[in-house]
């Protein structure tokens, strides 16, 4: 997964949101990494949410999100970073926010190659729905 898969800019967009954009040259994960997650907080829902543009690489080509994707950030049950993109129903978990985001990105890449590039007749109905969701969220530049 490319290091630029997710990039965060320093624009503070609201009480619990950070602005994210491709325009910023340097990722600023420290902005969102700052909270120390207490597992006890996990029952209170997402601590913050991000909007990010994703740039991903698949076997078929390069994926670019058609619009910024909302990503919820919350502590995992082990106090690590968990991210979840409701529009995709997919997420990631890891020791750092950046690694969790990359976990999400790699899941999207894998599922694109496995499902979107597959003949729909070889997919279950739920897999077709997920493939359609991915196809409607990302543009593929071959």
């Amino acid at each position, binding site marked *: *997964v490319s290091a630029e898969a997710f990039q965060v800019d320093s624009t503070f967009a609201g009480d619990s949101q950070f602005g994210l954009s491709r325009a910023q040259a340097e990722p600023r994960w420290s902005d969102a990494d700052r909270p120390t997650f207490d597992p006890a907080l996990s029952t209170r829902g997402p601590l913050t949410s991000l909007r990010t543009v994703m740039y991903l690489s698949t076997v078929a080509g390069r994926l670019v999100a058609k619009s910024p994707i909302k990503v919820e950030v919350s502590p995992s*049950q*082990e106090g690590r970073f968990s991210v979840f993109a409701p529009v995709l129903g997919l*997420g990631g*978990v890891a020791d750092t926010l950046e690694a969790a985001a990359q976990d999400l990105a790699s899941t999207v890449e894998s599922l694109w190659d496995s499902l979107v590039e597959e003949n729909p007749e*070889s997919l279950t109905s739920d897999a077709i729905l997920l493939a359609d969701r991915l196809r409607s969220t990302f543009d593929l530049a071959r």
Partner: protein
Amino acid sequence: MRALSAREVRDALLSKGFFLDKRPRDHEMYILSVDGKKSDFFFKISRGAAEVRKDEIAHNARQIRVPPSELFSVVSCSYDAQATRELHDRRPPRSGAR
């Protein structure tokens, strides 16, 4: 629920109808085959990981819309292939608003 060895999880998945997507990645993606078709019921393991942590099981469960305790039953071998298939079949439909 507890952490499980990655080997134990791999063996459990492969014995219950999952297949390994062999594309080179930094992780292993196991996808359940349902009536010969690829499903959206998957489990991801970091390549080279010695164990699968509790929060990874919970995270995988959220993505496939099943309770973590039930996915733990799949990967810890409490559920057989039939119980795994039944878990797949009774999941809520995929949702997600833009």
